[in-house]
C-alpha cells in the first residue's frame, strides 16, 4: 500500500468516515448493546474503553460487518449502508483486528496476510507475494518471515500477522480490538507509530484496549462504555486514567498493586524446585524455586521460553534433563494429571486453544479439573457444584453471572476469569499463572491481583508470568530472568525499574545469540534455533 493512495477525498474533514447510530444488539437474553452511537472522523484514533462485557467487541464487530445489529444504522462516508457483511465492509474500507486471534494455521504468514485480496491473473495466483509482503513490512517493520507456517508462530507474532492483514487491506477504518494484549511494551510502541502513520494518511483507527495509558497516548477521542451503553465521548486530552476508570466502573479505584504479603523466610522448605531442567519443547536449563506463600515471577522477552518452562513444570511438555522436585519428592515422569493431583496447576495463556471447552457451560469448565471433589461414585453432585461455582462467579465478578451458559458467549475478560476460577476451584498448593490478566479490564485486573495476593497469604505458592512486566515487578517477591530457554539471573522486583529490566533482558538475548553463533556452524541449533543475523543493540539505542 502506498502512502498517497488513500487520502480521504471529502470536502469537510469533520465529516464522519464511519457513523454508527442507535445500535442495539441482543444475544439470547443478554442485551450487549443498547442504542449506542459512534462517530469516527477521518484521520483520527477513536478509543473504546469499558469493563469486560461492556460491548466494545460487539460494537467493533458490527462496524466490520461480522455481526448484524438488531436495530440502528451504519453509514460510511455519509452514505447509509444497506446489507452489511464482512465482504461489503472491506470493500467500503472497514476492517477489524479481532480480539481473539482468527488466522488460518496451515497457511503461511503471507498467505494469511493477503487472504481474500490475492493478486492474480485470470484467477491464477501471481508469484510475487514476497515483494508485496516486503512493501507492507516496510510500513510495520515487524520483520516476520512471510513463508513461515502460521501455526508455528508464537502468539505475539500471530497478533502481528493480524495487524499486517488489516494494514494490507488499504482500509479507511481499522478496528483494533485489543491489538496489544500479547505485545510487549516495545512492540506496542511500534504499533502506535504505525497508527500515527495511518492517521497521517487520513485513515482512522478504532482502538479498543484495557491499557488506559496506551489509550491516552494514542487516541484523539475516547468513548467510554458500560453495560452496553455509551457513557460519554470526549477528547482524549480531557481524560486521565483516573477519570476513565471512574467512568468505566462507575466508581473510583486506586489503580496500583495491593500490598505484597510477607515473604516467607528463606529457610522455609520450598514447594517446588527445578534444577537445570530442560524440556523437549525448548527449555534448555531452568533453575527456580517457589516457597509456600511466595510469589515468584518469570521475566523475559516474548518468546524467551517462560511459557515453555511452565509447560515443562506441569508435565505438558516432557522434561528431558535436570530435576523437578515438589515437596522434596522428585516428580519423575509427570503429566498435567499427576501435577494437578499433587497440587500443582497452570493457568495457560491461550484460553481458547488450551484453556476452555468453549461449547460447554462456564460452570462445567470451572469444575472440569477438579470434578472429583464434586462427585461421589463417579456421579456429579450438581448441588455442591452449583454452590461452589456460584461463590467463584461472585468473587470474580463474572458478567453476566450465569455460569450455566456456554462459555463461548462470554466476553474475553469474563472468559479469562472463568479460566482462573477453573484452577482455583481445587485449592491448589502451587499455581503457575501464564498471562493471567490478558484482556481483563482494570477493575477485574485489580481483583485478580488481590486474588493472587490472597492466595499467597493462604500459603499457596505462585509462579507468575506476564508480558506486562510491571505486574511481575509489582506483585512478586522474587523473579527469575529468562532468556533463550534458560533462567540466568534472579532479581528483586521491588528494586528494579522496568527500563533496567528491559536493558538486561536484551543484553542477555544478544549474548545468547552470539553464543549459539559460536557453538553452531549453521544458523540454527537443534534445541533453540537462533537467527544470528541481527542484533538488538541498535534497537535499544533508537
Amino acid at each position, binding site marked *: 500500500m502506498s502512502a498517497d493512495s488513500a487520502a480521504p477525498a471529502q470536502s469537510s474533514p469533520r465529516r464522519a468516515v464511519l457513523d454508527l447510530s442507535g445500535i442495539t444488539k441482543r444475544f439470547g437474553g443478554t442485551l450487549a448493546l443498547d442504542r449506542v452511537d459512534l462517530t469516527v472522523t477521518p484521520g483520527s484514533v477513536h478509543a473504546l474503553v469499558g469493563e469486560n462485557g461492556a460491548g466494545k467487541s460487539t460494537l467493533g464487530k458490527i462496524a466490520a460487518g461480522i455481526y448484524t445489529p438488531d436495530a440502528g444504522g451504519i453509514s460510511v462516508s455519509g452514505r447509509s449502508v444497506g446489507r452489511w457483511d464482512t465482504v461489503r465492509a472491506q470493500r467500503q474500507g472497514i476492517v477489524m483486528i479481532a480480539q481473539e486471534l482468527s488466522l488460518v494455521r496451515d497457511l503461511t504468514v503471507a498467505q494469511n496476510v493477503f487472504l481474500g485480496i490475492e493478486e492474480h491473473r485470470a484467477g491464477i495466483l501471481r508469484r510475487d507475494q514476497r515483494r508485496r509482503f516486503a512493501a507492507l513490512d516496510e510500513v510495520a517493520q515487524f520483520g516476520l518471515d512471510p513463508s513461515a507456517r502460521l501455526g508455528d508462530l508464537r502468539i505475539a507474532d500471530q497478533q502481528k500477522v493480524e495487524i499486517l492483514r488489516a494494514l494490507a487491506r488499504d482500509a479507511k477504518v481499522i478496528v483494533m480490538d485489543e491489538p496489544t494484549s500479547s505485545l510487549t511494551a516495545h512492540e506496542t510502541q511500534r504499533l502506535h507509530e504505525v497508527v500515527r502513520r495511518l492517521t497521517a494518511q487520513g485513515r482512522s483507527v478504532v482502538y479498543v484496549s484495557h491499557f488506559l495509558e496506551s489509550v491516552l497516548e494514542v487516541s484523539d477521542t475516547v468513548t467510554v462504555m458500560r453495560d452496553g451503553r455509551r457513557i460519554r465521548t470526549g477528547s482524549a486530552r480531557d481524560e486521565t486514567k483516573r477519570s476513565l476508570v471512574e467512568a468505566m466502573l462507575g*466508581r473510583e479505584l486506586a489503580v496500583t498493586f495491593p500490598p505484597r504479603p510477607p515473604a516467607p523466610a528463606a529457610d522455609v522448605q520450598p514447594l517446588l524446585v527445578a534444577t537445570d531442567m530442560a524440556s523437549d519443547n525448548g527449555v534448555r536449563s531452568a533453575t527456580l524455586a517457589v516457597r509456600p506463600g511466595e510469589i515468584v515471577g518469570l521475566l523475559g522477552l516474548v518468546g524467551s521460553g517462560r511459557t515453555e518452562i511452565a509447560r515443562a513444570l506441569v508435565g505438558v511438555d516432557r522434561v528431558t534433563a535436570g530435576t523437578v522436585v515438589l515437596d522434596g519428592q522428585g516428580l519423575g515422569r509427570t503429566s498435567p*494429571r499427576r501435577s494437578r493431583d499433587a497440587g500443582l496447576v497452570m493457568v495457560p495463556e491461550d484460553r481458547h486453544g*488450551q484453556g476452555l471447552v468453549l*461449547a460447554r457451560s462456564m460452570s462445567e469448565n470451572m469444575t*472440569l479439573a477438579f*470434578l472429583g471433589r464434586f462427585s461421589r461414585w463417579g*456421579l456429579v453432585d450438581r448441588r455442591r457444584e452449583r454452590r461452589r461455582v456460584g461463590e467463584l462467579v461472585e468473587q470474580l465478578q463474572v458478567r453476566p453471572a*450465569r455460569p450455566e451458559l456456554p462459555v463461548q458467549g462470554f466476553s474475553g475478560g469474563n472468559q479469562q476469569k472463568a479460566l482462573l476460577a477453573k484452577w482455583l476451584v481445587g485449592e491448589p498448593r502451587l499455581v503457575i499463572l501464564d498471562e493471567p490478566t490478558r484482556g481483563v479490564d482494570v477493575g477485574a485486573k485489580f481483583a485478580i491481583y488481590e486474588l493472587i495476593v490472597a492466595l499467597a497469604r493462604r500459603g499457596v505458592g505462585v509462579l507468575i508470568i506476564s508480558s506486562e512486566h510491571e505486574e511481575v515487578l509489582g506483585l512478586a517477591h522474587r523473579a527469575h530472568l529468562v532468556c533463550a530457554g534458560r533462567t540466568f539471573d534472579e532479581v528483586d522486583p521491588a528494586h528494579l525499574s522496568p527500563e533496567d529490566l528491559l536493558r538486561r533482558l536484551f543484553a542477555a538475548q544478544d549474548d545468547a545469540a552470539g553464543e549459539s553463533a559460536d557453538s553452531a556452524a549453521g544458523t540454527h541449533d537443534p534445541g533453540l534455533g537462533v537467527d544470528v543475523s541481527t542484533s538488538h543493540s541498535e534497537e535499544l539505542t533508537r
Partner: protein
Amino acid sequence: MTITETATPARPSPSSTPSSGARVLAFARDYAALVLLVVIFVTLSIISSSFLSFTNIMNILNQNTPLAIIAVAGTFVIISGAFDLSTAAMYAVASVAVAWMATHTDNAALALLIAPVLGVVMGILNGLAVTKLHVHSFLATLASSLVYKAVAVLVTGGSLITVTTEGFSDLGRGRVGGVFYAVIVLIGIVALGSLLLHSSVFGRHVFAVGGNSDAAHLSGVRVDSTRVTVFALSGLAVGIAAAIGVSRIASGQPQAGAGLELQAIAAVILGGTSIYGGVGAVWRSIVGVFLIALIGNGFDILSVNPQMKDLVTGVIILAAVALAAADRRRR
C-alpha cells in the same frame, strides 16, 4: 477477596424479555427433531387407523431396538469428537460368533454373552488404533471395519449359520405383558446411558474431550483412555444389539448389520448432537432413530409406493435440519 461493587447499575436481567415468537423459534431450533417426531406421530395417528395401536407401537420400538442401542453409544462417540464406522462390521462379527457358539456349545446364554464381550474387545482395538496411531477415527474405523468384516466372512466361509439351540430366541422374541424383552433392555440402556453421559464424571470428560481435547488434557483428563472407553462402549452396545438381533432371527451371517453404521450416525446427528463434538444428548439420538423409524412404519402401513420412502426420508431430514437452523445466522 474483597472488591465490592456497590455502584454497579442494574444489568439487564438474564432472562430478559425475548418475544414469544422468538421463544417459539428458539424452541424449534433446539428441539427440531422432537418437534418433527411429534408432528409425524400425530399425522400418522390421524391418517391411519392402524398406526396408533399397542402392537404397532410395540413393533416399532422392538424393530428398532438394535439400531437405538447402537445410537445411544454412538452419541458418546460423536460427542467425544469421533466417528465409529465399524459398527456394522462389529455387528457382523458378533452375529457370526454368537451363531457359531450356539451351534457348537448348544448353550444359548453363553453364546449370546459372547457378543458383548467380543464387541468390547473390538471397540477397544478401535480405540487403540485411534489413540495410538493418532489417526482420525473416520479412517481408522473404516479400515478396522474391513478387517472385522473379513473376519466374519472367513469364520463362516461366507455362509449363514442357523441356530436351533433351545431358548436361543427368547431374548429377541420373548415378551412380558406384551412388551418385548428387547424393548426393556433398550429402556434400561437409555436410562443408564443418559445417567453416564449427563451426570457422571466420565460423561463430563467425554464432553470435554470432544469440545477441546487440549484443554481436557491440561485439566488432567485422561484423554486417550476416555477415547478408548468411548469406543469400547460403542463395541459393547453393538454386541448387545447383535445378541438381540441374532436371537431374533436365529441365524448369524457376515452380512448382518450392513448399513447400520451410517444409520446410527445419521440418527445421532439428526437428533441434534453436534458432529463437531462437545454438544449432544442421549435422548436426542433416540428421537433421531424413531423419527426415521416412523417414516418407515408409515410407508409400510399406508399404501404408498415404497420407492418414495427414501425421498420422503431425505426431505424430512432436511426439514428437521432447516428447522434447527431457523433463526441461526452463523454456525
